[in-house]
């Protein structure tokens, strides 16, 4: 779960990280009023995509009127597929230098990782490896100030600035821990002309699996409307741009199924993991989602381990009976209770495949062949 910049900043501020004064607004008029309190300001689109600046999602104004105009220009914009509905009006910072600092979970090392760079202000992926300082943390010790001091030295900071940087690292780690973060990032961490450090932009991504520990955290809905709807019924779902609707059991199988469709020249419309051991009801729900997408073909690929083939067959027949399925359905069905499942489908006029390859090929053919 990603948090909007303004939420991330609020959390950092509360944790004691220095930030500029800022206000969230929904209208140009509110932006003007905020600017009257704040002074010269940056107006920043609150969307969960990187590179807002380049895409025109950040503008500046020296007067309330300029800030209002900037807000008017940005509100309603489409930024990489997301409509801008909310802005953050933030006091403008004078910049002597831009640093980068983040704490994230390093999957390979299985430890938290502090990354820092004296070359902040661009996406960290664009920074050369030798310009990034990497420092793993021991989860049983955490980030005491000395870690920050070491990193500060490595990025070339000294004296009061090194101390301020070390302090920020400790506070970032507090946020990382307290909010079950996957990533907490300040980029840029601005060095002001007077030497103070200020977090100019912030990201905070929270581990979805830990959301139950953070009931107060405002839920930011990611993804398309359909994705949200399907996830709400507890299924893993990703919208794609093809025309073959796909259901499989298990994330790996679902990915492999998309790959197989692509292999034969088809274009999958979605990723949908119906679960490794789903019974009739959730499977039927998942199927209804597929039907609602108006695909050219529906492809169901089941390897019955814990999932029972007869359950899948029943779910399919149930959906067909209750609401009809106006497009061809290709079913591959093997494994537990395979015979019963295949028989049920055959009686309903559906011939199930035994192998995944030919089934995928057939689905692609029914969708109109190679795109």
């Amino acid at each position, binding site marked *: 779960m990603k948090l909007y910049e303004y939420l991330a900043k609020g959390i950092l501020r509360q944790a004691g990280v220095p930030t500029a004064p800022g206000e969230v607004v929904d209208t140009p008029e509110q932006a003007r009023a905020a600017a009257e309190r704040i002074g010269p300001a940056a107006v920043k689109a609150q969307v969960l995509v990187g590179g807002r600046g380049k895409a025109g999602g950040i503008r500046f104004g020296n007067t309330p009127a300029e800030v209002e105009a900037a807000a008017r220009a940005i509100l309603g914009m489409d930024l990489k597929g997301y409509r801008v509905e909310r802005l953050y009006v933030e006091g403008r910072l004078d910049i002597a230098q831009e640093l980068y600092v983040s704490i994230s979970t390093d999957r390979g090392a299985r430890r938290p990782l502090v990354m820092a760079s004296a070359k902040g202000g661009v996406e960290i992926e664009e920074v050369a490896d030798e310009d990034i300082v990497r420092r793993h943390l*021991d989860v*049983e010790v955490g980030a005491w100030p000395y870690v920050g001091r070491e990193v500060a030295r490595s990025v070339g900071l000294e004296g009061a600035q090194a101390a301020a940087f070390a302090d920020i690292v400790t506070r970032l780690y507090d946020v990382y821990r307290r909010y079950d973060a996957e990533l907490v990032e300040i980029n840029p961490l601005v060095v002001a002309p007077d030497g103070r450090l200020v977090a100019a932009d912030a990201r905070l991504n929270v581990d979805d699996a830990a959301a139950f520990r953070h009931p107060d955290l405002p839920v930011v809905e990611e993804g398309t409307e359909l994705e949200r709807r399907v996830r709400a019924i507890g299924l893993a779902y990703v919208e794609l741009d093809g025309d073959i609707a796909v259901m499989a059991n298990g994330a790996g*199988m679902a990915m492999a199924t998309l790959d197989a469709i692509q292999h034969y020249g088809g274009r999958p419309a979605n990723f949908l993991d119906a679960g490794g051991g789903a019974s009739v009801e959730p499977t039927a729900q998942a199927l209804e989602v597929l039907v609602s997408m108006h695909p050219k073909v529906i492809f169901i690929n089941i390897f019955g381990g814990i999932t029972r083939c007869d359950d899948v067959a029943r779910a399919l027949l149930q959906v067909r009976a209750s609401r009809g399925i106006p497009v061809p359905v290709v079913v591959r069905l093997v*494994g537990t209770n395979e015979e019963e499942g295949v028989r049920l489908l055959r009686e309903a006029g559906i011939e199930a495949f035994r192998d995944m390859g030919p089934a995928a090929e057939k689905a692609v053919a029914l969708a109109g062949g190679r795109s």
Partner: protein
Amino acid sequence: MAILVGSETRVVVQGITGNQGSFHTAQMLAYGTRVVAGTSPSRVGGREHGVPIFATVREAVEKEGANASVVFVPARFATDAALEAIDAGVGVLVLVPEHMPVQDTMAVLAFARRRGVTVVGPNTFGVLSTEGRCKMGIPPNHIYRPGPVGLVARSGTLSYEIAASLSAAGLGQTTAVGIGGDPVAGLTFVDVLERFEADPETRAVVMVGEIGGTAEEVAAEFIHRMTKPVVAYLAGRAAPPGKRMGHAGAIIERGRGTLESKRRALTEAGARVAEMPWEVAGLVREALGARAG
């Protein structure tokens, strides 16, 4: 021979009275696994499928000689269960639950490292060894056959698909290991490959990877030095960046975790990389033949 688990493995099932725990205890017993104890807050002193129920893993260790645990409690209780099992002295810990907070997993792994405990998962189907007939986890019993192939995968169902195709082709398995679909996991591909490399019965290894992270790239570095052939299949070619494909770990983020990077690394390391799952068995046969010749 096999790796990780075998005939000497004495399993305690944490959460044995839950739906999942109870169902899979029956399945594990049916496979031949020595399930010697279960834990549950309720029905302490009773039995589930004939297996005695205790309040704590410590009692299961002390009274029934349990030396391995498989966790079936809901994700939000799994951290406590995992720490309990490590503290009680089991040697192998299989964490089936999906959706364990990643920072909890890191804490569990740090404790496990100090205590010398092997953690499989979380978000794993578990481990199954054909010799010694020991299964800890949830894979279907009927698809595996004894044979020379070591199988290691992130994903459950996809690995079942491939195991079944191997079995159908007459290529049985020594052990099937699920490292799990989470971003942070106990066993890595390398950990498992090392064990297969050292296992005298394993003659070839099948590795089922997917997008996300760099575990496959790291594995490639080890494969360079392996004497046994490795066949890989990688899922997620059709996945767009920035989207989680079901598994918490299956996401291309900030340019890392792409399928292309993994395929290149594995190919350069000398692994045979199948384009589609159904090609795996043929490549294994070819590899075994090549090695023999």
